[in-house]
């Protein structure tokens, strides 16, 4: 039966290329191979977000009068609504963490060096998309916290000269965050960003098949590799099973909460803070004038984006200590700002 099915498609589509690819694909084994699991884990979590997101969208209503109520309804009345929404909530947090780890690990292994420059750029853009997903999704429950987080977020570009105000207006869709903003964020979150994400992730993963996994320079003399099918895939699957188990444990222990509905004329409550992954931006904004804060962060992101072209030594397969230090400095800055934000109220 299986034979005939395969034969059927083989005759019509010529699966031999696919089969050869499956046979040849391998993953290098060395001291730092551990980090290879995070890309696959990110892929798994994004799939989970898309599935749970589509389910949530069936009940969600992007209207200030009903948004909060519809999320409440999902949590309290819809069967297993708490489960679906909590997986979406925790999945988003896990995903951000995993994508950050994936990015920094490839950075420090200098996996961005020639010929994988485009993969690196796609990867940074995908991280941007993931953060955009969390930003736009955050407004949807229409709570006090989500309302002010969005206000700060949409007003941040307005610092930029010339185009800034225009971008803010386009994101807000009105004179202030309101009904128009909610429908815009909803459309971004459920239509535009998913399409972009699928496109960029497909390219990123396709390229990773073309080039295979990069081996860090320090391990270049190691020649050991394991086959992808089935050896590495089985390891991947084990990681996914473990990851899902931890995710479900968090979902059970701490299901997604729902803050009070926003009253748009009331002041921002004392002590509000963004989610953990935006804390370093938040702390930077608190400590420095906004033009300097946002200007510096924008510049750093641009440098980060084109790092494969700046790090010429790595492209020639030479050690580039400067860029290792630069990455370490960025990481230390982000972590210390995050801790500072936790310590100060």
């Amino acid at each position, binding site marked *: 039966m299986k034979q005939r099915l395969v034969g059927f498609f083989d005759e019509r589509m010529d699966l031999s290329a696919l089969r050869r690819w499956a046979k040849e694909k391998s993953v290098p084994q060395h001291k730092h191979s551990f980090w290879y699991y995070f890309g696959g884990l990110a892929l798994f979590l994004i799939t989970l977000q898309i599935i749970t997101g589509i389910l949530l969208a069936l009940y969600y209503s992007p209207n200030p009068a009903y948004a909060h109520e519809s999320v409440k309804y999902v949590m309290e009345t819809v069967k297993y609504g*708490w*489960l679906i929404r909590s997986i979406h909530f925790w999945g988003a947090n896990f995903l951000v963490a995993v994508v950050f780890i994936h990015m920094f690990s490839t950075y420090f292994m200098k*996996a961005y060096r020639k010929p*994988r420059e485009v993969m690196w750029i796609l990867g940074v853009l995908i991280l941007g998309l993931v953060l955009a997903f969390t930003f736009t999704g955050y407004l949807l429950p229409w709570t006090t916290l989500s309302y002010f987080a969005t206000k700060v977020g949409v007003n941040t570009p307005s610092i930029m000269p010339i185009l800034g105000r225009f971008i803010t207006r386009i994101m807000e869709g009105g004179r202030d965050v309101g009904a128009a903003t909610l429908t815009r964020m909803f459309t971004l979150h459920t239509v535009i960003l998913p399409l972009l994400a699928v496109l960029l992730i497909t390219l990123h993963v396709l390229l990773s098949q073309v080039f*295979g996994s*990069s081996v860090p320079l320090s391990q*270049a003399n190691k020649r050991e590799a394991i086959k992808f099918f089935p050896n590495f895939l089985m*390891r991947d699957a084990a990681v996914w099973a*473990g990851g899902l*188990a931890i995710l479900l444990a968090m979902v059970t222990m701490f299901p997604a909460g729902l803050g009070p509905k926003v009253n748009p004329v009331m002041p921002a409550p004392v002590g509000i803070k963004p989610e953990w992954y935006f804390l370093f931006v938040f702390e930077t904004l608190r400590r420095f004038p906004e033009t300097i804060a946002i200007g510096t962060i924008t510049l750093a992101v641009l440098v980060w984006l084109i790092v494969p072209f700046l790090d010429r030594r790595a492209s020639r397969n030479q050690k580039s200590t400067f860029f290792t230090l630069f990455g370490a400095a960025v990481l230390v800055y982000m972590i210390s700002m995050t801790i500072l934000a936790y310590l100060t109220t």
Partner: protein
Amino acid sequence: MLLVIISLILVGTSANDSLAASIPSFAQRFNFTLPLIVVLLILMFFLLLKVYTRESQPSRSQKGISDSNVKGDGSKEKVREKV
């Protein structure tokens, strides 16, 4: 691995559900997710078992496979010749 289950049980016995009373209680959530978590962990265990028993067989070191990955310079042909 067990840590996940243990922490779940610990939280379960100590939690007085401070969350909205109208969502299913911890016990209800726990009863639904725990079997799945256990199955996932068993699955993971057997996957790993399979990985390690497989790879202790001689086919483990696969130096022979043509491999564009070993050198990061993208010159597939060259590497293949070397191998």
